[in-house]
């Protein structure tokens, strides 16, 4: 249609008469007609720009794009002799009113700006830590209040959150756990068989998964799945002023929104860890049966002997602590979202990255603190 339309409309044309003294324009001078031929038209205008007399009587249509092209060719003022139909007067009037208006200039980037930028980053980090401490402190105060006022516990929200972050995360945790168990068992079996140390597969899988891999793996999954959802939900509620609405009704955002998420994830994570580790060990068992011909019976009997029960406790405690941290970080970033899409996406990304980093850092601390507990061969 566009080609037909352009065919039906008279094309913009420039005729120079009297050896460059007079320029006659005709046809449509509109965006849709001019833009495809912009370079060509501008060259012709440039060549004719010195002419004192311009005749626009033949122009059938002129929009602000066409007018601007002419205005720039004339050097931002009317030429001495201009034939302009009455109908086109207003377009040039607006251009003349615009004058030499230009965009506000942003100051150039200088060396000191880099220092200032670094300083701002550092101050931003300090501010983040400050807000985080305020969040934790507020939650503790709210917990004290709730201990005295039992009827205000947000039990329904906790239950709903528990279902959302715990029960609904079970399938994906099982799938990933099973596959990791199979892969770990398969690779270890290849090595162990070369040394004739087949039975140690139980030690490797049991210790590795229950104490270390299970909690960390589930944390990474939950941070990506539930942590990001928490941040986004709080963020959207900030954008749509729902949190402000809650505050005006006298409902504390910490009690109603943050606390249920934190409590639910702290309770759900040890259970998810148990579930994920169990399925991972099951995957390892299946693989050991296929690769090393090791019966399920033998594996299950050897497991308690190879892995002292302290490891299970460490794994579950880690799960609870990681859950607490993920929920706190997610809520912290969710409450910092500003009402625009950019801020929402930036905070959701920051939430996931930060919670995974924090989980791995805290895991290292756990490894050092519990180094004397639950390891049979030292």
């Amino acid at each position, binding site marked *: *249609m*566009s080609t037909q*339309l352009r065919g*039906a*409309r008279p094309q913009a044309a420039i005729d120079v008469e009297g050896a460059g003294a007079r320029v006659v324009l005709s046809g449509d001078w*509109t*965006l*849709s007609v001019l*833009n*495809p031929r*912009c370079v060509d038209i501008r060259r012709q205008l440039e060549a004719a720009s010195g002419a004192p007399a311009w005749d626009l009587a033949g122009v*059938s*249509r002129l*929009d*602000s*794009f066409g007018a*601007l*092209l002419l205005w*720039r060719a004339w050097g931002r003022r009317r030429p001495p002799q201009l034939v302009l139909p009455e109908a086109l007067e*207003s377009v040039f009037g*607006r*251009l003349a*009113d*615009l004058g030499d*208006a*230009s*965009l*506000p200039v*942003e100051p150039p980037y200088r060396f000191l700006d880099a220092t200032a930028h670094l300083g701002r980053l550092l101050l931003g980090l300090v501010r983040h830590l400050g807000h985080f401490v305020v969040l934790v402190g507020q939650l503790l105060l709210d917990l004290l209040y709730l201990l005295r006022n039992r009827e205000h516990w947000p039990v329904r929200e906790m239950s709903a959150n528990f279902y959302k972050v715990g029960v609904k995360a079970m399938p994906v945790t099982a799938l990933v756990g099973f596959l990791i168990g199979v892969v770990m068992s398969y690779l270890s079996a290849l090595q162990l068989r070369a040394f004739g140390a087949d039975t140690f597969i139980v030690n490797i899988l049991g210790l590795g998964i229950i104490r270390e891999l299970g909690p960390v793996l589930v944390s990474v999954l939950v941070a990506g799945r539930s942590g990001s959802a928490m941040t986004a939900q709080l963020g959207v509620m900030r954008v749509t002023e729902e949190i402000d609405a809650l505050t005006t009704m006298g409902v504390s955002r910490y009690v109603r929104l943050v606390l249920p998420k934190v409590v639910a994830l702290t309770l759900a994570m040890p259970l998810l860890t148990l579930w994920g580790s169990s399925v991972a060990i099951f995957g390892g068992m299946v693989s050991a049966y296929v690769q090393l011909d090791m019966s399920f019976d033998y594996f299950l009997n050897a497991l308690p002997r190879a892995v002292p029960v302290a490891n299970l406790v460490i794994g579950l405690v880690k799960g609870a602590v990681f859950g607490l941290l993920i929920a706190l970080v997610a809520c912290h970033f969710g409450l910092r979202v*500003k*009402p*625009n*899409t*950019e801020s929402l996406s930036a905070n959701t990304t920051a939430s996931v990255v930060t919670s995974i980093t924090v989980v791995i850092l805290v895991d290292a601390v756990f490894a050092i603190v519990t180094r004397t507990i639950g390891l049979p061969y030292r």
Partner: protein
Amino acid sequence: MNAARNTLPVELKGLSTRFGSTWVHRNIDLAVPVGEVVALVGGSGTGKTTLLRQMVGLLRPAEGEVRLFGEPLFAGSRAEQLARRRRFGMLFQQGALFSALNVFANVAFPLREFGVSDEAMLRDLVLLKLAMVELGPEVALRMPAELSGGMIKRVALARALALEPELLLLDEPTAGLDPDRSAGFVRLIRALQKALGLTVVLVTHDLDTLAALATRVAVLSEGRILAFGPLDEIMTVQDPFIERFFHSERSQAALARGRSEI
């Protein structure tokens, strides 16, 4: 020139809309002539905004057809549909500015999409559009989150006008503005409509706006167009809805206020 000028910018033919099992519109016919400002009015839930969204193709009617500039809205190849879409602009109720882009980039967006790539030209065009909606260059680098409600509407209007459309659709143009700003915005739309020779279709609850802007009014009631014509003609139609909508004391005062602004 006249052949193009005589085709109807918007034409609805036998249009019916259904949400679930309820019919919102039944067999609606409406023809919007060139250069007119047509206001769609009706009680809440009569599907005024739905009708507007169908005109721009955001919703598809269950039956019937929407024709823009003499052709069915969804006719032709992708390029032809795109060319048709560039002939109208829409102002959304909340402005719908892209919140990740600043004011300048918002207004420049449709121009860049169209293929205007010369930065100096683009800068002048955007500043011109902003000047048309009475905004100075100092707001150009602000983000939408830093603008007041009235400024958001103005920037959104500048963006809707960026490609020099022939047809402008306005969804509740004065909703959420205080009376003073609302009167100013109506004056601005009126001036631009006259200067650019636009055809305008608007949805409004606000009788001030209606009286000041509309050259024709379409009254939606019970799923059909109850009446279509100049405001004075509509006022004489005998109907309970029109009675309640236009003849209450509050309405009369608002209409008088709107008329005095013209």
